[in-house]
């Protein structure tokens, strides 16, 4: 079974430029998460989707960050415009979903390392 897929793995951009990250969750996983991981820190949740609905986006900086999960499968996280402080690893994770009884266990993708110059 394929795991969580993310692309690109690495991205280098100039500040003020836009950038987008893509995530494909494990097949059948209804819940999708985007995390931000700064160097030497644990991941911090940005947004959680249940199917196509964003049910927790309280930590998403909405002035420059946006996300979507059309059709409740793949998801895209966008930053526009990027700032120097956005340099970090962006992780995507998925889990079976709240009705499964196994919603607690999250499976992570390899992440996208963003460098803003």
């Amino acid at each position, binding site marked *: 079974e394929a795991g969580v897929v993310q692309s690109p793995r690495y991205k280098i951009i100039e500040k003020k430029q836009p950038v987008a990250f893509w995530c494909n969750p494990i097949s059948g996983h209804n819940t999708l998460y985007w995390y931000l991981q700064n160097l030497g820190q644990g991941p911090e949740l940005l947004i959680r989707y249940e199917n196509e609905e964003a049910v*927790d986006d309280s930590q998403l900086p909405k002035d420059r960050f946006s996300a979507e999960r059309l059709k409740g499968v793949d998801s895209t996280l966008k930053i526009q415009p990027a700032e120097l402080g956005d340099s970090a690893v962006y992780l995507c994770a998925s889990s079976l979903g709240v009705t499964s009884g196994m919603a607690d266990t999250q499976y*992570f993708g390899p992440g996208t390392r963003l460098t803003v110059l």
Partner: protein
Amino acid sequence: AQTVTQSQPEMSVQEAETVTLSCTYDTSESNYYLFWYKQPPSRQMILVIRQEAYKQQNATENRFSVNFQKAAKSFSLKISDSQLGDTAMYFCAFMKSGGTYKYIFGTGTRLKVLA
């Protein structure tokens, strides 16, 4: 608000030896889940072990086991017969049950297994 503390930024262990990574947490919840995740240098986080707070029995997965002390709010990970492939960052995570499905991670412990 819940917090997770990993007080050991770095640790090392000789191959085949045993090492214990510590994790403490603060919560007023009675039902929750605890996890240990491993993040090798390639960066993909892998679930090592999970524990449900209502279960008194400590979880075990092959060479990995936990010492869960609910009253002390402690959740340590023991790695037996350490292997070079165990070299990684290890993160402890907390999630309360009942709807948020939000992990609270510690800052991690960098473990190096020495040949």
